[in-house]
């Protein structure tokens, strides 16, 4: 990365982080809402651990993977809404009048998502462990969980950027949030994939990449080190991120028609 590009990305990243830190409305719901659902699910569904083949006797440990995914989904909304606001206010035009490159712009905008990802992951993990969840992979596993959470958060953040660049409208980006949430509900969120008895739901959840992201977290929480599941989780997150970045770069070209 050249010095100029590094400065550009660094400055935009700084702005993105400042914006995130100065909007408690972005951080607090992304922390509270997933933890609230964790409390409800781990209390209400704990009898599921008595199902034959359930991988752990602690539903809290099983369910602790879900907040990481919910947190990542929040980054769709946060990244996208921030960029949409820049488009609406003309701030993107201000940036377009500088020698800023498209790659620097998109990378810089995702810096806030990285910070949010770290804060979310550390909080969910700390609260989960304090509440009694297990972490089979130990301290090293905690670091990998944070790394996976950041990768996933950034990956979903690129989808928010794409949506913002396509629509140029913050409300349109926010309306996508429930759509993305559906993917969470039609995954192995509540039960392991092989224990889902309803065939259509099993098929849909099996085809849903979110199930494998959840499984990567669970492997560290429940099993210890399962490199195959971890690799699959990271590969899915990176693929979503790469596709999202590619789509966002295309949308940016259309949005920024500067000569």
């Amino acid at each position, binding site marked *: 990365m050249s010095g100029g590009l590094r400065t550009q990305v660094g400055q935009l990243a700084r702005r993105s982080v400042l914006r995130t830190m*100065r909007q408690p409305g972005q951080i607090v719901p992304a922390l509270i809402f997933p933890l609230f659902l964790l409390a409800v699910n781990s209390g209400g569904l704990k009898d599921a651990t008595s199902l034959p083949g359930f991988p752990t006797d602690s539903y809290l440990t099983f369910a602790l993977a879900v907040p990481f995914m919910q947190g990542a989904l929040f980054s769709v909304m946060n990244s996208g809404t921030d960029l949409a606001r820049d488009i609406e*206010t003309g701030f993107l035009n*201000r940036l377009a009048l*500088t020698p800023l490159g498209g790659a620097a712009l998109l990378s810089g905008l995702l810096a806030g998502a990285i910070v949010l990802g770290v804060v979310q992951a550390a909080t969910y993990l700390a609260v989960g462990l304090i509440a009694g969840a297990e972490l089979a992979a130990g301290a090293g596993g905690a670091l990998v969980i944070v790394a996976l959470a950041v990768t996933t958060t950034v990956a979903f953040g690129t989808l928010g950027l794409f949506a913002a660049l396509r629509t140029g409208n913050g409300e349109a980006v926010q309306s996508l949030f429930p759509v993305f949430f559906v993917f969470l509900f039609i995954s192995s969120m509540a039960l392991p994939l092989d224990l889902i008895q309803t065939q259509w739901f099993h098929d849909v959840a099996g085809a849903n990449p979110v199930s494998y992201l959840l499984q990567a977290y669970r492997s560290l929480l429940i099993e210890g080190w399962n490199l195959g599941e971890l690799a699959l989780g990271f590969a899915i997150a990176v693929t979503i991120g790469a596709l999202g970045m590619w789509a966002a770069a295309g949308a940016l070209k259309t949005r920024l028609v500067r*000569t």
Partner: protein
Amino acid sequence: MTNESPERAGIEVEGLVREFKNGPRAVDGIDLRVQPGEIYGFLGPNGAGKSTTVLMLTTLLPPTAGTARVAGFDIVREGGDVRGAIGAALQEAALDPLLSGREHMRLQTALHGLPKAERTARSDELLGRVGLSEAADRRVGGYSGGMKRRLDLALALAHRPRILFLDEPTTGLDIQSRTALWDEVAGLAKEGVTVFLTTQYLEEADALADRVGIIDHGSIVAEGTPAELKAEIGRPTVEAVPREAGDQERMAEALRPFGERCDPTRRGGISVRLEGGESQLADVVRALDAARIAVEQLQLHAPSLDDVFLAKTGRSLEGAGDGPAGEEPGSEEMEAVGAS
């Protein structure tokens, strides 16, 4: 088109057109030339094509047809060079409410590639210049409209551009903020910065611009110095309103020797174009006095840019009465003069 050295080049536009899909021709083949160091006022009502022209000249919108060189660079083929030479404060002050003024300056100077050691000094200098030193560390969300506009101007100047585009920089500002911004723009021109200023305020164009282009429905309908444009319209008019409505005919008769009668006025008075210019005003008063006509109001109208707009387009410019002083420019009013 000439190929002047970038340091000495202004703006040259030939046949510039912008068509939007399923929409009107927002800009319909305009030609204009702005000399280096000149303030060019681009005057027109809302929707005339001013902002579309600015977006094209600042490389943010490709033209449908025509050519333009800004600072010696072609806006289509050399967009990056154009952007390096210009600064722009577009129609809305595009600021981040969550960042402070100083943080905006830091971002802008860094993105324009100023050396790290220079960024802080340049930011402080510009914030001081636009009077925002004290508010520099406050978040922009708490700034007034005038402060936002001044910060916008400072940001546009961060990389020392040779050409500055200001798109309606004073719209919505109070008189004090407007005047402060005018002073700043005039100061920049004195330093050699070429300024392309769009406005819908006649007073702004009149006070600031060396030359004015009037645009309507995407076409330039008049161009010249404000004095030249007003001179085109001709001589001043005097408007007299009788105290008694029944005196209108006698008043018209008394004013007939002074020149051609204009259209009826809104106030029920008689308006006459003074063949002999302003110096005839005293004679007009004497004539009305001699005819023993009581006068409610007597007003001398010097030709204004609104008159120019009216003459060229057949309608008055929107916002014409929306100026700083809330009165028509170039008019001198005398209340209730004349004999009883």
